[in-house]
């Protein structure tokens, strides 16, 4: 009896832990190991330990550097942008005015849709030759734009497209956080003569710190590892202006069959993700 009691939790845990070890932890360790070999991650043909060579080749690879630059610029803009817009959207739909329920339902709809469908739909709407948006621009007397076909506009356009899902998604978490703040806390502050801005800055924001940390980390993780938008919309172009690193890694591995470079790039991306997430957590840790 006692022995089976001791065994019971492990029997309950075993399947889930085994799956997490095999499908989540093993690939990380193995991917890291394989990035030190030629012909990484494949079983056919000879393979050779090359130490850091895969990474050293990356250093001399202008496409990699350009892709890293594009990925960093994209993230430095898109993560704060989505976080801030989501926070204000949540504040905006957290009020109790008539019909707000219906608006909340509509504004949160994009959450259910996949990033691919959003990318395709907006890709069609923003099509340089035919698109709906260009039609509307012309109708009000403005000039047509190239959007995803232009070196200058492709990245801002892509930021807009991914934010169409991102902003409502993260707003949902902020909304949950806002609704957890007791109403009398806000009321007390207002009664003491605090302005709307003071209440927001000195009462609401500190209480939302945990949610803010969660949202910022989640946007970072999601946007550092975007694949579908460049794959479906731009193929990384024009002139590599939207060549995000995960897309480049996929292209290296699965189109050009250079699995060593591909593994090294994903490991660089993994290292960046971990470092950024740790910094964000440290920065936003509650003061207590």
């Amino acid at each position: 009896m006692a022995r089976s009691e001791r065994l019971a939790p492990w029997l309950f845990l075993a399947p889930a832990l085994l799956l997490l070890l095999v499908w989540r932890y093993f690939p990380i360790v193995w991917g890291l190991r394989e990035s030190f070999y030629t012909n990484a991650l494949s079983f056919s043909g000879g393979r050779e330990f090359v130490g850091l060579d895969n990474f050293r080749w990356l250093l001399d690879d202008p496409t990699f550097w350009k892709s890293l630059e594009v990925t960093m610029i994209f993230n430095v803009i898109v993560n704060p942008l989505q976080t801030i817009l989501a926070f204000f959207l949540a504040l905006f739909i957290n009020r109790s005015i008539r019909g707000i329920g219906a608006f909340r339902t509509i504004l949160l709809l994009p959450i259910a849709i996949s990033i691919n469908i959003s990318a395709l739909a907006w890709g069609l709407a923003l099509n340089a030759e035919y698109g709906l948006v260009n039609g509307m621009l012309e109708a009000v007397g403005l000039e047509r734009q190239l959007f995803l076909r232009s070196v200058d506009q492709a990245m801002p356009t892509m930021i807009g497209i991914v934010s169409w899902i991102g902003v409502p998604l993260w707003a949902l978490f902020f909304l949950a956080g806002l609704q957890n703040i007791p109403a009398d806390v806000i009321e007390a502050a207002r009664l003491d003569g605090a302005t709307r801005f003071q209440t927001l800055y000195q009462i609401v924001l500190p209480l939302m710190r945990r949610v803010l940390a969660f949202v910022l980390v989640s946007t970072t993780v999601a946007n550092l590892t975007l694949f579908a938008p460049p794959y479906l919309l731009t193929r990384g172009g024009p002139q590599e202006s939207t060549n995000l690193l995960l897309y480049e890694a996929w292209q290296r591995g699965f189109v050009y069959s250079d699995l060593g470079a591909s593994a090294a790039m994903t490991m660089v991306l993994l290292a960046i993700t971990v470092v950024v997430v740790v910094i964000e957590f440290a920065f936003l840790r509650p003061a207590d």
Partner: protein
Amino acid sequence: MNPSLPKRRTNLVLPPVASQVTAGIRYRRAVSAASSVLSYAGLILLALLVLVPLWWVMVSSFTTRETVWANVLPFSFRAFLPEEFTLAAYQEIFSRGFGRAIANTLFVGAVTVVLTILICAMAGFAFARFQFRGKNALWVLVLLTLMVPSELTVIPSYTLVSTFGWVNSWAALVVPAVGNATAIFLFRQFFAGIPQDLFDAARVDGAPWGRVFLNIVLPLSRPVMVTSGILIFLGQWNSFFWPMLVAPDAAYRQIQVAVAMIGVDQELTSWDLIFASSTIAALVPLLLVLPMQRFYVSSIMGSGIK
């Protein structure tokens, strides 16, 4: 605090002249009316930003290929109504195996939901209700998987799948998704909130843990089963990168891959097919989420409070 204080911040010190008071009230009413008009204008604008592209994609899917762009450039509001109503695009995508992709995805989604709920409920129960050595370390190990997106390990995972001989198989689509830290988290939170007496009573007659789990614990957790079930199903329905790599064959093709295959080459002129397949791929999760938005929202919220 004095309960008789008014709820809103009002002028407690009355101005001396009566006409000034009424002017002040009138002014404040006008300001609040103006601000609510502005609020509604903002809400409507945002709602249009969400609805217009969705509506336009849907309407265009019911239009003939030749007239898809007819009212777009030059633009007229008739772009938001089908120029010549037809189901031709739907007939064509279904004749090209889109129905198979829908069925495949529903199958993979259903199997994943059942397996994930069973296995993650077991793990969540163990974390919530048992004391054992290394529990905290294992819990951290589970939560850490949320910090490393699976996209980053997709290439070694692919090699693992091919080692098992699973490329183009149901297993490749289902098995890697079953160990789900979010689901374990949701079940743990739920079971931790249930009074211990309930479990003690169930075990009084010496029933084995397995039976207690299946007869008592699992049925109790129906709310979490619904919420995590929706999350898991949507995860599979909207999954793209992984199925594209491990199961591109028509026999196993998932819906997002099928849509992308139609949509990726926009130089083609089969616009109506992109519109039709996108409409279906968007409509299923929308129809699933709309009636259950309350559940879905609460499940996302639950997973966010970590």
